[in-house]
């Protein structure tokens, strides 16, 4: 009995002990992380001689999946800083210019691209970067990346000498630039990856970008330190050498409100993914400048062309005509650009003429829309405001991606616009990817979707029969296949013009708008350059 008596006391203290232990351990671990970084920073500061080290803090909504561009399914600023593509698009996407590569040339028939590397090219860990590494990178990409097919057209890569790599293509491929000019196509240190294994490499990947991974605190942030060997050949940046920040910290802040508040409070200098409802305030904020770019792609409504009554093209066109994109835009505070064609001007292959043509044909016209419906036999006989055909009112459901804020915001407006046409539209919110799955399985009426890719080639993944969506058209298939092989930019744009008209003619997809994207930058940060597709260059950036 006395023993139990003792235990009573024990438990009491045990409780306390537990809590304290918990807290202490926690604090301990975190403190540990902290000290680690601080020692690191002092080291780097000594390397950057006298003046105290400059740190840039960037905030993004999503945490990176990993640091290895070849293993992740989407890239963000972190990867742009760790890796360096061979070439980049010009800011207006009208051409391609060297980046890592000193120079490059394309054979007349367009099936051979030769890249020249600078002789002293290095990875950020000091390993030399030769043509061999380019070859290995592409091969690894084909194995590990979800986008392995990006290089499908590359037949083989010939290593002419340590600085010359020749890409042999099965056929000319204009769309290949999109990969080569994006961070996805950037060389990674394959030897290292093989040595330490993909898992470890994904935690601390090495490329030839301006920064290298110092510490990735999961769920919180990643700290990058400058790569002193970095060199670029981009003509439109002044500073071709290492960046001006000793350190860049990228914080992952999922909550919109918090992220923006941090920018206002000056705790971060650059914020990606500014929610549109914050744009108005930030425009007024004297300490913040907003850089904007247009979505390289469009938000659209996909229609199930196999499912009555939507199998009737007239109804699809009626819906297209009943959507008032101008009102939509103003309701969304003009933070979107109405789209009538299937490409945005932030995409290679966009054609102004086509856009204008489609606009005149399909801009808002409720009367015409009503006539088309009536022609198809849908009239409001019972006067309840909803059109009906042999007693059945026209009720359709629209799948709305709840993880795409702008589209989500647009949906109720479209709902009310179609009401005017006499269509009872029901909204159903799902994860975007679920909607993609459902549309692939043809299990839907109408679905709101979007694409983001700065090359028109993206259309092939939506409209080609192989893409697996309800609508397809052999003529369009052929045109799409041809279009990707055209090397000349303007030629290609023309072709995509025809393709868009061909698609619009059957209206399996109703273009809505392209979103303006905003990056919030503190005024004290100068020299940030951004291309129309949102590609961002910090080479000349500095804190004044």
């Amino acid at each position, binding site marked *: 009995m006395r023993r139990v008596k003792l235990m009573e006391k024990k438990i009491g203290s045990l409780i306390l002990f537990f809590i304290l232990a918990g807290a202490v351990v926690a604090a301990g671990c975190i403190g540990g992380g902290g000290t680690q970084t601080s020692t690191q920073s002092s080291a780097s500061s000594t390397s950057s001689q006298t003046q105290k080290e400059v740190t840039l803090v960037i905030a993004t909504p999503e945490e990176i999946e990993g640091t290895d561009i070849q293993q992740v399914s989407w890239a963000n600023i972190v990867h742009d800083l760790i890796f360096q593509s061979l070439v980049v698009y010009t800011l207006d996407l009208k051409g391609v210019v060297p980046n890592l590569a000193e120079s490059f040339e394309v054979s007349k028939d367009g099936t051979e691209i030769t890249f020249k590397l600078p002789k002293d090219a290095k990875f950020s860990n000091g390993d030399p970067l030769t043509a061999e590494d380019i070859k290995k990178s592409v091969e690894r990409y084909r194995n590990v990346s979800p986008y392995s097919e990006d290089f499908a057209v590359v037949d083989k890569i010939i290593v002419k000498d340590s600085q010359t790599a020749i890409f042999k293509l099965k056929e000319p491929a204009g769309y290949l630039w999109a990969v080569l000019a994006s961070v996805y196509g950037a060389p990674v240190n394959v030897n290292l990856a093989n040595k330490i294994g993909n898992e470890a490499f994904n935690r601390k990947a090495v490329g030839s970008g301006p920064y290298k991974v110092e510490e990735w605190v999961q769920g919180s942030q990643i700290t990058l330190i400058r790569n002193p060997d970095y060199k670029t050949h981009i003509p439109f940046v002044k500073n071709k050498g290492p960046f001006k920040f000793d350190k860049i910290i990228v914080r992952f802040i999922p909550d*919109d*409100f918090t992220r*923006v*508040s941090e920018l*206002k409070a000056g705790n971060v200098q650059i914020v990606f993914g500014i*929610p549109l*409802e*914050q744009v*108005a*305030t930030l425009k007024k904020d004297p300490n913040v400048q907003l850089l904007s770019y247009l979505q390289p792609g469009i938000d659209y409504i996909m229609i199930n062309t196999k499912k009555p009554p939507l199998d009737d093209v007239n109804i699809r066109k009626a819906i297209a005509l009943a959507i008032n994109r101008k*009102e939509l835009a*103003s*309701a969304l*505070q003009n933070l979107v650009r109405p789209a009538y064609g299937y490409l945005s001007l932030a995409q290679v292959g966009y054609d102004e003429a086509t856009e204008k043509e489609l606009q005149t044909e399909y801009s808002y016209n409720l009367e015409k829309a009503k006539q088309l419906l009536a022609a198809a036999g849908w009239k409001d006989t019972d006067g309840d405001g909803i059109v009906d055909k042999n007693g059945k009112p026209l009720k359709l459901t629209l799948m*709305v991606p*709840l*993880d795409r804020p702008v589209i989500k*915001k647009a*949906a*109720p*407006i479209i*709902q*009310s616009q179609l009401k005017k046409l006499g269509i009872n539209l*029901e*909204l*159903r*919110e*799902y*994860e975007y990817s*679920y909607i993609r799955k459902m549309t692939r399985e043809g299990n839907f009426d109408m679905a709101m979707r979007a694409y983001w890719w700065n090359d028109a080639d993206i259309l092939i993944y939506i409209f080609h029969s192989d893409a697996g969506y309800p609508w397809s058209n052999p003529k369009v298939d052929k045109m799409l296949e041809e279009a990707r092989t055209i090397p000349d930019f303007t030629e290609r744009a023309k072709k995509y013009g025809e393709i868009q008209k061909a698609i619009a003619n059957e209206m399996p997809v109703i273009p809505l708008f392209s979103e303006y994207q905003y990056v919030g930058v503190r005024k004290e940060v100068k020299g940030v350059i951004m291309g129309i597709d949102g590609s961002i260059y910090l080479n000349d950036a500095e804190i004044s």
Partner: protein
Amino acid sequence: MVNFDILRSGSKNISFKLGGMIFLSVIVMAIFAPLIAPYSYDEMHISDILKPPSSKYLLGTDQYGRDIFSRIVYGSRIALKVGILVVIIETVIGISLGLLAGYYGGKVDRIISFITDVFWAMPPLVLALAVVTLLGPGLTNVMIAIAVVSWAQFTRVVRAKTQSLKNMPFVEAGRAIGESDISIMLRYILPNTMGAIIVLSTLALPSAILSTTAMGFLGLGAQPPTPDWGVMLSEGISYIGTAPWISIFPGLAIVYTVLGFNLLGEGLRDILDPRLKV
């Protein structure tokens, strides 16, 4: 010790009264929504987006120029619907399982208790999220999810009560005159557990409403243009800098209602539950 029961009886209870009044006001709001609300809840005034409170829009307008006051008024219907339906599902499951487990004991009890424990061992919000992600978002599914994660408490209470009641003389009497188990459970035991159940329900209702708002905050709420307070609030939060009224008023509406129910529940418990009667 001195016996105070006579003295204690019928002690009047402030929180009960207050809660009751709030509860009624919400009911009224829900029933007469069309009369109270100046606009319909989904009527958009694209020209009047994000307008602050004014004579035209009592509590201002939201990102679509919809009248927030009207939406809140109609929203009371959603809140009540959610709360009440969830509680009904919970009580039905809880009571039936609880009665069975408590009355029959033995294997039945062990099995049911096991199931209850299993649901007890799952983090409620997580389970709810999983269920909604499985069923797809939407009010109905949210309600199902919440009910699924929170019926266990009812079972536990009813079970305990039943166990303590089943050997009471009046129940014995019932058995003696040859009543069937079912009728004993329903006509002898159930009525005596009602006090506890009522209290539990009135307290489960507000927590159901809160859970719904939490789901709404994580983007798994009612489908637009349904004026669900939680969804309104969470959508409004992103405008908190420019148009605080969008989120503040629904927030207040939630606190008001939930507070009302909590008070009501507290009061009822003080009145019905002898353990806490002072």
